[in-house]
């Protein structure tokens, strides 16, 4: 009986003694033994590289923003090399499957509000200055990358959209195509730089309808 107790204590003692040692071992991570990908993940999530506990506008914390989904992983190849055709077709196929449509069909909204949203870069920024969605609508950032109207200077990362509706018309097919590209542009352009505004709930249905009106409505300055 007593012998058992002693050995039991000894085991507990040994475990206790080995604990600090285990902790030290766990802390010592050899960066040089990791692949660059492993180290990048470690630096982001384990080594205090980012303020991951910060709250984000969509709820939850910034940690989930740093976790890559499948598409982000696929489209992150080093040196910007595009994946092979088979992969791109798969990305496109999967992107098509993510697109959902409004129950009452795709509609064009108010091009004036769409114009403001297309210009605005507000929304979803976190950190030293956090965008407050109560105060400001979330913008589409469109002008950052596209020239759209001729009255403002747009970026050139994406193609020019000047005269978008005038050139293409407003057939159902064009309206659906425009909706698809805003909702998840990877359906048409796999591994494009453009954000997936619908899939990620970056823009709500009203904002998408208004931006579409800005692009397609014959009265919009885009089509003058």
């Amino acid at each position, binding site marked *: 009986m007593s012998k058992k107790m002693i050995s039991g204590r000894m085991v507990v003692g040994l475990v206790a003694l080995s604990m600090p040692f285990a902790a030290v071992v766990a802390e010592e991570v050899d*960066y*040089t033994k*990791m692949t*660059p*990908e492993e*180290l*990048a993940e470690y*630096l*982001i999530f384990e*080594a*205090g*590289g*980012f*303020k*991951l506990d*910060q709250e*984000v506008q*969509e709820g939850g914390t*910034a*940690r989930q*923003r*740093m*976790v*890559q989904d499948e*598409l*982000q992983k696929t*489209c*992150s*190849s*080093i*040196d*910007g090399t595009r994946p092979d055709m088979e992969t791109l077709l798969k990305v496109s196929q999967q992107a098509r499957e993510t697109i959902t449509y409004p129950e009452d069909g795709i509609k064009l909204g108010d091009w004036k509000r769409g114009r403001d949203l297309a210009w605005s870069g507000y929304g*979803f*920024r*976190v*950190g*030293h*200055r956090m965008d407050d969605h109560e105060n400001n609508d979330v913008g589409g*950032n469109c*002008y*950052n*990358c596209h020239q759209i109207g001729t009255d403002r*200077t*747009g*970026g*050139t*990362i994406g193609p020019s959209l000047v005269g978008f509706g005038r050139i293409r018309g407003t057939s159902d097919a064009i309206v659906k195509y425009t909706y698809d590209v805003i909702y998840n542009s990877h359906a048409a352009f796999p591994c494009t*730089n453009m*954000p*997936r505004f619908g899939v*990620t709930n*970056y823009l709500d249905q009203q904002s998408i309808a208004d931006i579409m009106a800005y692009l397609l409505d014959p009265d919009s300055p885009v089509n003058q």
Partner: protein
Amino acid sequence: MLRKLLPIPLRSLHQVSGHAANQHQQPRLPGGRARRLGRVSLALLLVALIPLTVWATTREEAETAIAEAKQTREEAIAAGVTDSPTNEMIEQAESVLPSRQYTRALQYAVWARRQDAMAMELLAQQEERKAVGDAAKAAVGNYQEPLDVLEGLIARTQSEYLSQSDQNLMMMPDSPALWTAADGEDLFKEPRGPNNVSLEECDFGKGPGVLEGAYVELPRYFEDTGKVMDLETRLVHCMITLQGFAPDDPAITKRHGSNTDHMKLQTYIASLSSGFAWNPPMDHPLEKALRDAGEVMFYRRAGKADFACSTCHAESGKRIRASVLPNKNIPEEWTKAISWPAFRVGHDHVRSSQHRLRGCYWQMRQASPVAGSDASIAMLSYWTDAARGQPAILSDMKR
């Protein structure tokens, strides 16, 4: 060689000389003695050969040697060998010719020639070393005013990114960053903190207090901390360990704005590397590991808008609205992109690398990087490596 000179093969010579006298003793003779005997006879033969060679020197040979010596003398003068006793030696050689001392003349001529050849070789080595040194210096660069660096790059590349702001080019000579740097110099040299010492003992990688060209070789691995550190992190380290500041002292914690100690010090230290080529060391495995992880992070799409650094910085001549973006793949362009601290006209403040990094992650709708974290160092290592070889513009002026 020796065998060719001797009329009789060595072995047979030994046999001949040893044969008659030591025929009976031969079996008792230890091997060593026999060999010694052989060597003695060989030496005798060589001594006998010397007068033969002396007599063999002809006038013609001596004159040829003197001509060759003169030829080499001319080459040496052409190469720039100035002080040499060879003229005298050649004269001596010529002076002994009338008395038929051809061997002596030959000897003088050969010596003279050897002397000149050696002097030329030394000079060539000296020049080669100087050339290597100059090349190394040119590669690293010397101090150059930031505007001169930028104008040089514009002339070389016609990059739209580099030349997009005439206003900034005009304002650069009067950049407010100059005042920030001047304040930084005072702060750097002033005894501060609980330990009341200056930062002049701080080692930024090139030895305590050596600041010229130090910044373009950061981030680097530091033996004393076992970590790869950028300028800001190293500065924090020195302010805490050397000057004794508490980690929560405002001198340590306030990092942004021209009026902070940090921006003043960083701007001063970095400005002493203007015109030097970016050259972050990659000798230590940790430097390489972080740079490679930084590369992965550069292309790593994440966040609410699927952005990565490469979304904006992997093509030339692209714009975000009216601003031309720098391309990471063009080092001549990228050097300006990473030349921080720089005065940001739109902010009316001098800003740091870590501030730029934070701003990029904010725009990408990702989490904020922690200044000085290994993740931030990895990014800085990668982006500095991408500008390798190009001159730094310090302090730059940006929109």
